[in-house]
């Protein structure tokens, strides 16, 4: 079944809008919430994995955009600044999806965007702010 991992950014006016309900009910999509920050009267964000028929996915994405929700693919949201990374490896055990890994031969750290679910666990661990969330 086709899947899409997306970051949804809600303007303050749409925070009370039941997006997941409509995605499930109207488009027959499976919605897996990976993480969310929802604050009344402020811009809020939701990271979701959507799965369903190809056509349903396309229609669902169209619905989100038309509602006024900013939709962007996941992976662009955690940025790894290679120049700031000291390769200390403190972040490695924190990463649940192994997006951050270390080559045990050279001890060099690398980041694979596609595996990142933007859980932000690494953000508070990196002492050098080499990992940045871009909601």
């Amino acid at each position, binding site marked *: 079944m086709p899947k899409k991992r997306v970051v949804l950014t809600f303007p303050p006016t749409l925070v009370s809008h039941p997006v997941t309900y409509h995605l499930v009910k109207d488009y027959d999509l499976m919605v897996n919430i990976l993480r969310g920050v929802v604050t009344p009267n402020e811009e809020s964000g939701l990271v979701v994995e959507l799965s369903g028929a190809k056509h349903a996915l396309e229609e669902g994405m169209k619905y989100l955009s038309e509602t006024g929700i900013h939709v962007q693919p996941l992976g662009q949201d955690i940025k790894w600044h290679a120049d700031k990374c000291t*390769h*200390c490896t*403190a*972040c490695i*055990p*924190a990463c649940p999806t192994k997006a951050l890994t270390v080559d045990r031969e050279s001890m060099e750290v690398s980041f694979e965007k596609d595996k990142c679910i933007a859980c932000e666990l690494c953000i508070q*661990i990196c*002492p*050098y702010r080499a990992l940045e969330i871009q909601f």
Partner: protein
Amino acid sequence: MKVRAGCSRAAGSGQQIMHSYVESFMSKTIQEINEKIKKGSAVVVTAEEIIGIVHKKGAKRAAAEVDVVTTGTFGPMCSSGAYFNLGHTKPRIKIGGGTCTLNDVPCYTGFAAVDVILGATAMPDYDQRNAAYPGSFKYGGAHVIEELVAGKAVKLSATAYGTDCYPSKSVETMVYLADMNEAVLFDPRNCYQNYNVAVNCSDRVIYTYMGRLLPRIGNANYCSAGQLSPLLNDPLYKTIGIGTRIFLGGGQGYVSWQGTQHNPNVKRSGNGVPRMGAGTLAVMGDLKQMSPEWLRGASMTGYGVTLTVGIGVPIPILNEEIVQYTAVRDEEIFAQVIDYSKNYPEVIPGSVAEVNYAQLKSGSITLEGRQVPTGGLSSYVAAKKIAAILKQWIADKKFYLSEPVALLPSVDSGGSVKLMADRPVKK
């Protein structure tokens, strides 16, 4: 100069001369090594490269052929700071006894008119600390030091009470490192010889200077460059002493004393290597020579601000014994796994387990019968780069070894690190 991992010499008579040199080799002096550096004939290798050389050729031959082994480390150390002479204002101000901040981070002002000290862990008064637990500690003294070294302008604000000879009562200006008369990095303690591996045996997440530790031993964090670390390559302090010239923060600095909490009297392996935190170095050097690549402000969530400092120490290969020390491997260096939820804060002796650095660097260790992921705080990649830079400096005749003026207290020194006395205070 040739810098190489191998030490092959020309065939024929040269080989015979080398052979008899190796046979008769007993020892060499730092002065002789410096002569070789000057002539371009010194053989310099890193603490990683020497392992294979000693393994392949034996200690006697390695000691005869190799002159210097370079080490490196790049880890956070809170006991870091810098002192500055800011230059006099017109009219003059006596900041001594007054207040002074750099980018809102308070400096210590208990000195003369324009001499101030900035500690790595200092932070602005408005920082919430752990009031919003866990605090993020985004900016502090360590970051000011990094920015100054990067050539950035920093806001200086100072107040004074005013005297007849120093009439000004306040000053506010933007300063650059280049403006200062003296700017000296001074770390009362750095370069820890081995360190604890931190775990959390409690049921809640804890935030420590060893990073975030997950409950029920969810992870284990370590902090040492292991086989590349300076004091693990000279475990009994036979060459490193007061006055030893070193790579410090990208410039050339010196060992100025043994570091605070220097504690040589701990459990050691047969190879002399301590199995827990032991010796330390106090180091200093001209901040104006240094680079932001090797002095990095670090924010430890829930704990505070600290400074990550690049240090590289050259080990002169004076004899067979010294080269044998430098050949130490990660699997021969052991560290204690300590519970930071109870034992560390409550100062209760005891370790959960003992592990070696080869295990730690593999990404997981076995504790209580299960695999626990490991994370580092000291960068091995950076340590390796520092050892390589120091090797290149020596090759380029930019760096000569210095004779230590005095060696550091070693295992025969007695003494230990004491806790603070708890006595009733006289009212």
